[in-house]
């Protein structure tokens, strides 16, 4: 696919619309899901099933005044929410939704997505640092330690998948899994890897996605009970709105990556009608699991979080990496 100007503009518009639309309606889905789990109806006043709630919330947020606290670092303070949103939109450039729907496939797609994803935690640091607020500052410190702790197992697990696929091209990784459900990287039986530890890898990757997107039970950056609202304590108006949307856009990216790396992307489990709908189905099932997990588990402590990463996830992912390398050598 050639990279013409029209192509680029179209891709940008679609990516922003997809990210923003998902962010808006995942908030609705989250609130409805939370309500169902807690046996409430959830937002149901505005429009059928409360479907007009997200645009109305958006209008409310946009109509509010953007206050910058006295003594705050203005440039960083304004820049942080933008930084929260942009990695998610940038990542859509290379994520393939099906073999035809991809803005621009590059042969180091994984690398690019992880490069942008790691700048996502910069937004938390900037916001926490520039707010001139002790709670925000503590939240920034936590965000850094959390990002460091969870990028490692996530990247090691990704390396495992890249080793099996022998490519960093997302299209290529999906194509190698597309033969049948048993070729998916989560299932070890057929395909390149005969690695029985791949379900563990999937769990590690999924856990790290949760932690990377600052979702409960790992949302220590915005632990309300301890840090007021963490890094976005001082933000109002669309500054807060962008953080909020950024969180959901990052969930979409994380779920896209999990789908591509482990669940066979757009390939169908039974070989029927491969296409973008299978990708979207897997994507939204994963997102539903995100929401389900958030409303099931209480927030961990910062010690629990770091212990989980350094004592369990990193050793296990390293062991799996070695095991996979051995298997590749053998077969």
């Amino acid at each position, binding site marked *: 696919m050639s990279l013409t100007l029209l192509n680029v503009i179209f891709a940008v518009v679609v990516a922003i619309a997809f990210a923003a639309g998902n962010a808006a309606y995942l908030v609705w889905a989250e609130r409805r899901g939370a309500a*169902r789990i807690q*046996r*409430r*109806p959830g937002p149901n006043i505005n429009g059928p099933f409360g479907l007009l709630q997200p645009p109305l919330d958006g209008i409310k947020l946009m109509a509010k005044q953007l206050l910058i606290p006295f003594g705050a670092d203005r440039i960083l303070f304004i820049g942080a929410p933008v930084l929260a949103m942009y990695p998610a939109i940038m990542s859509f450039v290379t994520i393939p939704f099906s073999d035809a729907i991809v803005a621009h496939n590059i042969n180091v797609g994984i690398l690019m997505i992880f490069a942008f994803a790691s700048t996502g935690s910069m937004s938390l640091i900037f916001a926490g640092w520039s707010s001139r607020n002790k709670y925000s500052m503590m939240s920034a410190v936590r965000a850094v330690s959390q990002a460091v702790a969870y990028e490692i197992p996530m990247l090691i697990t990704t390396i495992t998948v890249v080793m099996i696929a022998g490519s960093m091209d997302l299209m290529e990784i999906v194509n190698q899994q597309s033969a049948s459900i048993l070729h998916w990287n989560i299932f070890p039986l057929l395909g390149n890897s005969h690695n029985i530890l791949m379900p563990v890898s999937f769990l590690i990757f999924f856990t790290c996605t949760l932690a990377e997107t600052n979702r409960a039970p790992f949302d220590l950056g915005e632990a309300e009970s301890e840090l007021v609202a963490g890094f976005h304590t001082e933000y109002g108006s669309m500054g807060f709105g962008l953080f909020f949307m950024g969180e959901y856009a990052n969930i979409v990216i994380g779920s896209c990556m999990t789908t591509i790396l482990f669940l066979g992307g757009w390939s169908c489990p039974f070989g029927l009608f491969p296409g973008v709908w299978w990708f979207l189905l897997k994507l939204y099932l994963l997102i539903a699991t995100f929401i*389900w997990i958030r409303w*099931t588990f209480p927030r961990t402590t910062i010690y629990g979080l770091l212990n989980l990463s350094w004592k369990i996830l990193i050793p296990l992912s390293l062991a799996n990496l070695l095991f996979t390398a051995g298997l590749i050598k053998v077969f």
Partner: protein
Amino acid sequence: MVTYFKDIYSGLISLFIGMGVTYKEFFKPTVTVQYPYETLTMTEKYRGHVELVENEEGKPNCVVCGLCQRACPSACITLAGEKPEGEKKKVLTKYILDFTRCSLCGSCVESCNFNALNFSKEYNLASTRKEDFIFDLLQRLKDRNA
């Protein structure tokens, strides 16, 4: 080393059990009441502010003995009555409840020997003015029968 893997395994299993619990809850019907659109009927023993009890003719049961006024620890109740010509009993002419001071202790209801007072089931009480909470119970009785 064995306990390390055992802990991981049991921890993982407990996570899935927890998710099973919320999965089951997801499909159960909602239990909350959408308050302004639907309301619950109050239980038998619900204590709202006191209300006068009427007899068959729609007149209050009260004989203006004043026991409730004396029983009230916060002096919320002001009542007055008169004896019309040729009648045996006194007739209530005024019954004011100052609900701003009432603590809903129920001493007035307890002290009443003529079944003239009971608790109402009213709970939609909100106002920005103090005067709205000084109830004329006689007027409320008339409004109720009207």
